[in-house]
C-alpha cells in the first residue's frame, strides 16, 4: 500500500527559478490496484512518482510504502528501490548492455541474486513482455523502438517490484506498439494480484481502456481521484484544467445532447459500439 501524507516539494529553493512542484499531496493506493495518473504538462506527475521510490525526497510530508517510511533519513533506499520499480519516460534510452539478456539482468544482478535466480527472472519477464528467446542474445540497439521499450520494462520487472510505476509508457509509439504495451499492463495486473501498477498518461483513451482508478493532477495538487467513471463523468472540470474526456465520450455526449438515449458512462469505442447497436436495435425493433 502506498500512503502519502501532506507531501510538498519545492524545486531549487532560494533560486530565481524556485517553483513549488507539489502542494500538499494526500493519497492512498491499495494493493493490487491499477491506477492512472493524468494531468497537464508540468502538473507534477513525474515529480510525484519519483517520490515513491525516494529518488526525490519531499520538502515536507511523509510517504509510506507497505508501512516503510520512505522519507525518513535512515530509510533503506536499496530495499525501497527493490520494492518500487520505476520505468521512466522513453526508458529505451537507458539501455546500455551488449545483449538484451544482460540488460534485463542488470537490475537483478544489482540485487545480488544468484545466477540461476537471475536467469529465471530474466526469462520470465522477457516472456511476460513478449520478447522472443532469439532476441535475448541480440544487441538492444538493433531492436525496433517498441521492442526496445519492452526490453526496458522487462529490466524493471525482473526486479519483481511490489509497485510498478510507468511514466508515459506509450509515448512516441505507433498504434500497434501502444496497444501491445497497454495489453501487457493489463496482463501484469491480472497475473499479479498484489502488485500496484501506476502509469502516467496523456491519453484519455489509454486511461479509459486500461486503468481502474484515476488520479488527476493539476498545478501540483491532486484535483480528483476516483474510478474511471467518477473522473470522466466530470468532463467540464477536466476541460477547465486542460484535460479532456476520451474522444468517444465527447461523441456520445453530443449524441445525447441531440436527443439520443445513450448511457452516461461510455469511455471506450467498444462500449460505444455496443450501446449504439442496442439503441439502433431498439429504434428499428429488429
Amino acid at each position, binding site marked *: 500500500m502506498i500512503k502519502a501524507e501532506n507531501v510538498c516539494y519545492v524545486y*531549487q529553493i*532560494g*533560486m*530565481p527559478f524556485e517553483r513549488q512542484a507539489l502542494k500538499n499531496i494526500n493519497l492512498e493506493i491499495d494493493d493490487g490496484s491499477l491506477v492512472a495518473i493524468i494531468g497537464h504538462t508540468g502538473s507534477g506527475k513525474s515529480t510525484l512518482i*519519483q517520490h515513491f*521510490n525516494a*529518488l526525490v525526497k519531499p520538502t515536507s510530508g511523509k510517504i509510506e510504502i507497505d508501512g516503510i517510511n520512505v522519507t525518513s533519513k535512515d530509510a533503506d533506499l*536499496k530495499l525501497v*528501490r*527493490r520494492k518500487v*520499480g*520505476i520505468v*521512466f519516460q522513453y*526508458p529505451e*534510452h*537507458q*539501455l*546500455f548492455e551488449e545483449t538484451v539478456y544482460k540488460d534485463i539482468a*542488470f*537490475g537483478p544482478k*544489482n*540485487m545480488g541474486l544468484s545466477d540461476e535466480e537471475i536467469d529465471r527472472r530474466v526469462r520470465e519477464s522477457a516472456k511476460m513482455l513478449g520478447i522472443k528467446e532469439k532476441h535475448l542474445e541480440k544487441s538492444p*540497439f538493433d531492436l525496433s523502438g517498441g521492442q526496445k521499450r519492452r526490453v526496458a520494462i522487462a*529490466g*524493471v520487472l525482473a*526486479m519483481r517490484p511490489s509497485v510498478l510505476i510507468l511514466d508515459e509508457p506509450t509515448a512516441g509509439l505507433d498504434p500497434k506498439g501502444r496497444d501491445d504495451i497497454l495489453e501487457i499492463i493489463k496482463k501484469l495486473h491480472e497475473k499479479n494480484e498484489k502488485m500496484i501498477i501506476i502509469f502516467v498518461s496523456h491519453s484519455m483513451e489509454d486511461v479509459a481502456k486500461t486503468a481502474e482508478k484515476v488520479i488527476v493532477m493539476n498545478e501540483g495538487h491532486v484535483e480528483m481521484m476516483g474510478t474511471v467513471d467518477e473522473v470522466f463523468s466530470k468532463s467540464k472540470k477536466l476541460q477547465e484544467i486542460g484535460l479532456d474526456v476520451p474522444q468517444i465520450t465527447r461523441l456520445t455526449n453530443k449524441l445525447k445532447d441531440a436527443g439520443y438515449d445513450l448511457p452516461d458512462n461510455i469511455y471506450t469505442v467498444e462500449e460505444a459500439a455496443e450501446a449504439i447497436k442496442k439503441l439502433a436495435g431498439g429504434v428499428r425493433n429488429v
Partner: protein
Amino acid sequence: MFKDIIIGQYIPGNSPLHRMNAPIKIILTIFYIIILFFINNPISYLAFALYTFILVLVSKVPLKMILKGIRPMLWIFIFTAVVNLFMTPGETVWSIPIFKFTLNITSEGIIQGAKMLYRLFFLITGTSLLTLTTSPLQLTDGIETLLRPLSKIKVPSHEIAMMMTIAIRFIPTLAEETDKIMKAQTARGADFESGNIIRRAKAMVPLLIPLFVSAFRRADELATAMEARCYRGGMGRTKMKENKAGIIDLKGCTIFVIALLVLILLEILVEF
C-alpha cells in the same frame, strides 16, 4: 549535482550589464582577467573586490547564483591552496613531520596560497558574470565578431562560433539527460556513490553508454534540422539582430577605464 553548473546559464534581465554590447563585454572581461593577475598589493586587492562587488550589484544577478557556480570548483580551490601552501620556498613558520619527510608551511606559502585563491575566486566570478548577463547567442555572436578579422588568414570564425553556440546550448541538455539516466539506473539498483575508485568507474558504464548514444542521436537530429532549414555555413549569412555599440557601452568602458586607472594609481602610489 549537475544543476550547479552555471556555465552558459543565462539569467535574463535588463540591467546595464545585460544591455551592453557582447563583443565589448568580452574584451572588458579579458582585461578584467589580465588586471586580476597584475595587481599585487593588498589595497588594490580590496579595490578590485569592491569593483567586482559593485558589478554584481549592478547586474542584479543574485549573489547566491554566483556562489553556486563556485561550488563545483571547490576541489580545485583546495588543491591550489594546499599546493601553494607547501610548495613555496621561504621562511618556515610551521613544520609537520610525516614519516621521514617534513612538510614545511612557509609564510610565503600562506601569502601565495591566499593570492591564488583570490585570483581563482574572482576569475570565476568575473567570467560567470559575463555568461550570466549575456545570452549564449549574444556571446557567440560576440566571439564571432571578435574573430572576424582572423578570417582573412582563413580562420573559420563563423564555424568556430557556431560550434561553440551548439556546445554551450547542449550543456544543460546533457546535464539534464545525465540526471535522468542516473535516476533510471539508480531505480534499477545501480550504485554511483559507494565503493572504491575502480568500482565507481565501472558503475559509470551504465551511465556513459546511454549518454553517448543520446549525444550522437541529438547531434544527428540537429544536423538534419539545420540542413532542413538551409544552413550552409557562414558565407553570405546576415544577422537578424546586428549588435552595435551604443551609449551604454561608452559609459561602461569609461567606468572600466576609470576603475583601471584607480587600480594602477593604487599599485604605484601605495607601497608595501
